[in-house]
């Protein structure tokens, strides 16, 4: 009897104690706010889907827990959340305009490939004081270079990265193609088994440029010089550029890739073809391994693997690396520090583990078990071949011109020489006007 009474008392005490906490957690997280609405300090935070605004309910819930735990450590603050749309280019251009007029959010997600524009306009606050030298040194070199200004200080924290790889169905393509020729042969051989050949992005969008650049980079080509001026059509780079373009053109002309690659404007199209069993080879992003695992039957998924993107020779291969940064636009040191704390508590590891997005620091691959899988370890090793897009302000227009060029070449509207000439001249004109 006494035992029951003590048990009941303990249970009711525990319930009563947990009620205020539960109520408080509810109060702390609203769709557009984290923290109490009565908190005196406000930090406007503009994020992407890498936040409680994620469309996947499980990931959104995971982020919500991380944000609530963070704000409990800072009860005098509230985060006013804004979520960017999928139209990244426009969102980032708008944010740059806002930053120039002093109306940007205090803390925001900035795409790594446009970070150069924000740095060039001196709208970012210095993040260096909030991160240790060891933490900065632990970043991959291309990441450290990407977030550093000309003065050597860091102006953002690049928290996740990805890379492009060649996915293949082992039951149809047993050996990983090492060179461009290997890939063409493997793709043509796969057609004999009813496949449509190798797929890659070839339509009018950023993925087309980014995925193809790996081939150009593997030849040692450069897009811009140290001053940010386009150089991809000059005497040093023209032949490399044409060689890389002709490689893709030959894949289409020979039938190793279908002409429809000129219409592919999303990575999901590639995964859809894999799921439908119509392709055995495609160039996709590292995150698509998890996508395939969740989409395909376990038996089907077991047939799929990946390897580095083939190069002109077995030893010359590169891959494009991207990812997101968090930066602060605030001039208030307290808000800048709060933004840095947000990065430290949420985006320096926990968010990577939550979404299985590759960390930008070598040490985190051992810290989180999720990155110890063979696939993620291989991705981490392939990052050694990683190359980021240039941070020059002209890059988005160069990318636009390469997309146009690729469409013209793959659809047969222009010869590679004419298409390169048009793209280079347009990029130079745009550079002169910037």
């Amino acid at each position, binding site marked *: 009897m006494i035992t029951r009474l003590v048990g009941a008392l303990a249970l009711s005490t525990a319930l009563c104690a947990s009620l205020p906490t539960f109520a408080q957690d509810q109060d702390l997280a609203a769709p557009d706010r984290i923290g109490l609405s009565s908190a005196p300090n406000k930090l406007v935070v503009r994020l992407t889907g890498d936040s409680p605004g994620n469309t996947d309910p499980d990931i959104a819930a995971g982020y919500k827990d991380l944000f609530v735990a963070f704000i409990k450590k800072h009860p005098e603050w509230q985060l006013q959340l804004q979520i960017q749309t999928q139209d990244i*280019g*426009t969102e980032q*251009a708008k944010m*740059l*305009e806002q930053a*120039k007029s002093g109306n940007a959010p205090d803390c925001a997600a900035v795409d790594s490939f446009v970070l150069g*524009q924000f740095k*060039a*306009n001196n709208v970012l606050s210095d993040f260096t004081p909030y991160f240790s030298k060891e933490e900065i040194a632990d970043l991959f070199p291309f990441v450290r270079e990407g977030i550093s200004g000309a003065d050597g200080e860091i102006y953002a924290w690049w928290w996740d990265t990805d890379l492009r790889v060649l996915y293949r169905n082992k039951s149809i393509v047993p050996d990983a193609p090492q060179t461009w020729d290997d890939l063409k042969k493997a793709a043509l051989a796969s057609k004999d088994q009813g496949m*449509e050949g190798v797929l890659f992005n070839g*339509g*009018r*969008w950023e993925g087309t440029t980014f995925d193809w650049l790996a081939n150009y980079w593997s030849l040692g080509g450069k897009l811009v010089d140290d001053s940010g001026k386009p150089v991809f059509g000059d005497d040093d780079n023209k032949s490399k550029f044409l060689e890389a373009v002709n490689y893709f053109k030959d894949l289409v002309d020979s039938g190793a890739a*279908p*002409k*429809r690659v*000129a*219409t592919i*404007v999303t990575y999901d*199209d590639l995964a*859809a*073809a894999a799921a*439908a069993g*119509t392709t055995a080879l495609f160039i996709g992003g590292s995150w698509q391994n998890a996508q395939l695992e969740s989409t395909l039957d376990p038996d089907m998924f077991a047939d799929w693997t990946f390897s580095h993107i083939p190069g002109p020779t077995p030893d010359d291969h590169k891959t494009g690396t991207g990812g997101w940064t968090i930066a602060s636009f605030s001039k208030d040191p307290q808000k800048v520090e709060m933004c840095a704390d947000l990065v430290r508590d949420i985006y320096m590891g926990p968010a990577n583990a939550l979404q299985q997005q590759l960390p930008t620091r070598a040490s985190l691959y051992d810290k989180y078990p999720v990155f110890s899988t063979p696939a993620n370890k291989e991705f981490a090793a392939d990052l050694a071949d990683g190359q980021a897009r240039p941070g020059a*302000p002209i890059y*988005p*227009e160069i*990318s*636009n011109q390469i*997309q*146009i*060029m690729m*469409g*013209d070449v*793959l*659809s047969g*509207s*222009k010869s590679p020489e004419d298409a390169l000439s*048009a793209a280079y001249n*347009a990029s130079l*004109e*745009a550079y002169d*006007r*910037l």
Partner: protein
Amino acid sequence: MDVPGNGFRARFNRRYAGAPLPWMLPVIVVIGLFYLYPVFDVIRLSFTDATLIGNEHTYTFASIIHAFGSPDLAGILLTTLIFVGGSIVGQQLLGLMIALIVIRGEKRRLFGTTILRTTALVAWVVPGIAGGIVWQMLFSEAPFGGLNSLLRMIHLHPVEWLSDPNIAPWSVVISNVWRGTAFSMVVMYAGLKSIDPTLYEAAEVDGASATQRLRFITLPQLRTVILVNMILITIQTMNTFDSIISLTGGGPGRATEVISLYTFNIVFRNYDLSGGVSSRC
């Protein structure tokens, strides 16, 4: 007009009783502020070298000269002409056809005319981006693409809907006609309803065929409606680029890049504000 009293209001009313300006001033201010100012600002910016990433700008004719001298402009204008022209013809014809069917169905009290009208309107409320994605699935040239699968079922060759630069502009027109036909149908339906029925009764008495009634009564009576509809479709289509972005992004190459998308790309891809607005002037 006698206004009693000696207060400010009474004096104001007495003084400006027949003058329109003071009464229209609030409307003029609102329109000027929210409609004319942006237009003037666009024109002003076209005479500058303003960019989204620069802080200073100077006044110059260089942006206008550059916009008109662009080697891409002729192709962009031709694509825009195909897009707008094709959309006007397609939307007018289909809108008129559906409106005639609905009117005829209503006259005969047939079941389903409301469903037909509502079905056509559904396309109108679908956002452009979503419409583009739907048509991308239909036009997909993958082995599992919607329209090509149907063609294969009836033993016809698949069509390169989006990868052929000569076909892609027409695919974009089809998707836009699908979206805009509902609007035309509503306009045509209203126009058809306003035609005096005694004209048709007289034509029937005279023994006019259906084709003759369409040619000599319906179309002449709809002349104003067709003109207004054409103007509205032209304005709508000239500003359309959301559905093209999600359907083709403007590709392959520049095959489906219309002037509004071209402007968008100049401003938001190249950060060239003055170049973008110059191309729209």
